[in-house]
């Protein structure tokens, strides 16, 4: 098994090192790193803006670039939270707790250095996991019939909507809205137009780019306009030579790094628990097993190393269910799957065998991209720190232009720009009512395949709805769904003490 994996990986490096793929990967991580540093721009908005631009390039290059934005942004986000105490990206909120005190003590550079090392360790572990785990998952998943696929998707949707931030009920409501948006357009089997309100532009369905840019572009801008205060750049004078951690700091970080990595990779396997939850759990664990828990929050280097390692191992691990089962764990993964589907590639367990260039190329590009990021981050730290000072008032109007032209270019149709504006406005109203829009995208991407498999399963079982419990594998998934719901109700009724005590203030937002 190891030898086949290595041969495949070798092939993957061949794909990823082709000059144009290498170029797209580089552009991806560069843009990702940049938006990660910029306060107020997230990887979601950036990936959706870049999505229309990838229609013209080959699928491999497109996926390498979009994934590069995602993990590149994680490197950049750490800079922002350590030097400015701004948790602009949720996974790095925990890093602020110890990162910023370190900066105040004048060890911000060392904290960044440790971040780069632990990110690389975490990411490497995540990639290795992907190499060995994905083929195993695929061999199991290829035996699935429509009933199994259907209940697996149900599990994915439930986990994605209830384990993420905010109220689980509202998460489920958002997933349902996403599924409904996915229905708009012609029915796949009979061709009946559904929920189109007689508008011909809607017969092909709602555009994924319009949804993503409305919810994560326009709605986000409306939320943050005039809300971001002028950043305090007092501590941002970090030079290349400051990045070197002392021997003692390095020694203390190793253990934290490995524990963080393991926690992150475990979290990645459960859909819905992305990097944010992983970083939080690993910080809480590290605090618990530390000999000096009271010093956490005053600038402990362990408190920087472990959440960063777990963020990165979880970010890479998130790709495992997405690529091998076709079931995304969060909104970013849903967008990347959406990009694959736009390129005409059907996601699911057959992806690895039918398009080995995409899968293995992606895996190999992770290594290459992570090395590029280390190279980009270490000597150019001064430049990234300068980026922090770009004010939001220049940022969002420019981003709005990219939103408009990006949506327009998907079909050369102004109607879609209008669609985006309306989705953005509705998205903002939903944000005001405490809904988190990320599950919408999950539902939207999985919706059509979910309906198709549901119909097929019912046809094969001759209309017997109990088919989902009669098949053993499917029954396990349904059982897990029930467990998830019961668990959520239990947690709601009596919140466990650990969560309530350890929840850092930044996460409560």
């Amino acid at each position, binding site marked *: 098994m190891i030898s086949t994996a290595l041969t495949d990986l070798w092939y993957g490096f061949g794909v990823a090192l082709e000059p144009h793929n290498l170029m797209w990967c580089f552009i991806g991580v560069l843009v990702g790193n940049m938006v990660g540093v910029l306060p107020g721009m997230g990887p979601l908005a950036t990936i959706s803006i870049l999505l229309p*631009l990838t229609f*013209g390039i080959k699928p491999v290059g497109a996926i390498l670039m979009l994934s590069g934005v995602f993990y590149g942004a994680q490197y950049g986000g750490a800079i922002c939270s350590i030097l400015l105490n701004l948790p602009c990206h949720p996974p790095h909120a925990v890093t602020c707790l110890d990162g910023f005190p370190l900066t105040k003590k004048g060890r911000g550079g060392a904290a960044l250095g440790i971040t780069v090392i632990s990110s690389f360790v975490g990411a490497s572990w995540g990639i290795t996991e992907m190499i060995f785990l994905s083929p195993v998952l695929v061999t199991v998943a290829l035996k699935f019939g429509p009933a199994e696929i259907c209940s697996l998707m149900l599990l994915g949707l439930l986990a994605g909507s209830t384990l993420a931030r905010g*109220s689980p*009920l*509202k998460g*489920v*409501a958002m997933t*349902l*809205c996403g*599924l*409904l948006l996915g*229905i708009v357009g012609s*029915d796949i*089997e*009979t061709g*009946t137009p*559904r*929920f189109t309100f007689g508008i011909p532009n809607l017969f092909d369905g709602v555009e994924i780019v319009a949804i993503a840019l409305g919810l994560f572009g*326009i709605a986000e*801008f*409306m939320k943050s*306009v*005039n*809300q971001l205060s002028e950043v305090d750049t007092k501590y941002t004078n970090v030079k290349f030579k400051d990045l070197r951690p002392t021997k003692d700091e390095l020694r203390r970080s190793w253990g934290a790094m490995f524990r963080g990595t393991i926690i992150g990779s475990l979290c990645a396997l459960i859909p819905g628990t992305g990097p944010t939850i992983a970083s939080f759990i690993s910080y809480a664990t590290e605090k618990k097993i530390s000999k000096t828990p009271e010093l956490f929050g005053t600038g402990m280097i362990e408190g920087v190393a472990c959440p960063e390692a777990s963020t990165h191992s979880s970010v890479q691990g998130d790709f495992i269910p997405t690529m091998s089962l076709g079931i995304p764990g969060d909104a970013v993964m849903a967008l990347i799957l959406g990009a694959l589907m736009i390129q005409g590639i059907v996601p699911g367990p057959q992806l690895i065998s039918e398009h080995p260039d995409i899968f293995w190329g992606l895996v190999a590009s992770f290594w290459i991209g992570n090395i590029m990021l280390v190279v980009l981050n270490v000597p150019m730290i001064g430049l990234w720190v300068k980026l922090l000072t770009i*004010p*939001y*008032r*220049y940022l*969002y*109007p*420019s981003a*709005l*232009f990219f*939103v*408009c*032209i990006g949506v*327009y*270019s998907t079909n*050369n149709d*102004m109607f879609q*720009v*209008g669609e*985006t*504006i309306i989705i*953005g*406005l509705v998205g*903002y109203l939903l944000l*005001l*009512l*405490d*809904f988190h829009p990320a599950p919408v995208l999950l539902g939207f991407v999985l919706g059509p395949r979910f*309906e198709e498999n*549901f*119909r097929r399963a*019912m*046809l094969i079982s*001759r*209309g*017997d*709805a109990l088919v989902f419990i009669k098949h053993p594998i499917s029954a396990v998934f349904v059982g897990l769904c029930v467990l998830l719901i019961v668990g959520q109700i239990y947690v709601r009724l009596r919140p466990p003490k650990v969560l309530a005590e350890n929840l850092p203030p930044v996460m409560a937002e």
Partner: protein
Amino acid sequence: MFDTLLHKRDFYAGGIMTLLGAGVTLNSMSYNTGTLMHMGPGMFPFILGVTLTFIGVLIFGTAIVTPLEPDEHILPRNKEWLGWFCILAGPVLFIIMGHFFGMAAATFFCVFVSALGDRQSTWKSSALLGLFITIPGCLLFSYVLQLPFPLFRWGF
């Protein structure tokens, strides 16, 4: 009782979801639902609509059960009417200007108007930012990416 209810987010959240669910359920009846074995186009939306109504009622229920938090507001504390308006007006102008005058005008007005939404920006700074984005933006999309969207047109 009813007075405090009107200040709760969950009251509106639950209400909207219930209405949406009910609307979808009613609308899906106008399509052929078919049987469980041979589902028509209306079956799946029907199931979703019923579930959404149920979830909406549950959210509504939490609004009644939970006490009102002291600082619970529907609108955020700082009301940025101008900012919100400008962010929405930018893309709207992009559509109108793009339809009648072409990409250059669309880009400029989109950036210019949305930039006015920030409290610190002035007419001059917004116009400068507009120009600063329009020129490279149009070069990129029109010449490099060859987007079929004329730079200038007179489309009445």
